[in-house]
């Protein structure tokens, strides 16, 4: 077993532990920080898969955007040291049962299927290749989803401003 494999399995175990802690921690701010560690693990996975641009996007958008937004809203909507309330025990049992059954089915399907990996001899995933393919309108081009997602982001931005805006009091 190579040093890389040992590092990979230890990192995966750490990611799973942090994922479990982020859904079971009673303190909301800690849950957000555990989520941050899981996202760093995912970014490192992209990095070792030779997708450098994707790792950079993951770090910038998730860690720089979403986690900061989540921490902001936690600080705005809850008091420090406040503990989350727990749900009824029957809900715990149902949720654990659903997750375990689902994971069992998915894992049995994965273990029954044999994959045939091919050696990587394709194009380098440099930013030039990614940009050309993202904006090409030929075969395997992605210009239509690119434009659609730009409209979606604009709509989401306007919607977020419109929803979060404080409404004017009529005749205060």
């Amino acid at each position, binding site marked *: 077993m190579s040093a890389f494999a040992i590092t*990979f399995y230890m990192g995966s175990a750490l990611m799973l532990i942090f994922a479990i802690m*982020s859904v079971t921690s009673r303190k909301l701010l800690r849950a957000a920080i555990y989520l941050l560690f899981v996202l760093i693990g995912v970014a490192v996975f992209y990095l070792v898969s030779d*997708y450098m641009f*994707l790792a950079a996007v993951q770090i910038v958008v998730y860690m720089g955007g979403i986690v900061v937004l989540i921490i902001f809203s936690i600080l705005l*909507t809850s008091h420090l040291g406040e503990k989350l309330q727990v749900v009824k025990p029957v809900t715990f049992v149902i949720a654990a049962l659903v997750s375990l059954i689902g994971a069992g089915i*998915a894992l049995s399907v994965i273990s029954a299927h044999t*994959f045939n990996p091919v050696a990587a001899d394709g194009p380098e995933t440099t930013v030039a290749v990614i940009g050309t393919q993202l904006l090409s309108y030929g075969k395997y081009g992605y210009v239509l989803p690119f434009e659609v997602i730009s409209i979606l982001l604009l709509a989401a931005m306007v*919607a977020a401003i419109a929803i979060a805006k404080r409404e004017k009091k009529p005749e205060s």
Partner: protein
Amino acid sequence: MIEDIPLSHILIVSTLIFFIGVYGFMTRKNMISMLISVELVLNAVNINFVAINRYLYPERLEGHFFTLFVIGIAAAEAAVAIAIFINLYRNIRSIDVDEVTEMKY
């Protein structure tokens, strides 16, 4: 490098993260922690896209682009969700799903 690891092991890790996210979504009452669980689920899916793209079709970039779009949509979704949470907190002083009954009808 990554070729030393069998593809099924990566899929096992992503499956476990996915169902941890599902468990968190079902057991939490606070909306922000439900959002955190959804982010876990989305990241598990992204790991699957990238791993299958890297192992089975390394000459293409389909999984790469889908992951990019999923990340973009997740950012939009988080922004709108947090705007809704802040507006709710301003109106009813709570963001627990049990308290939000006036959005029902």
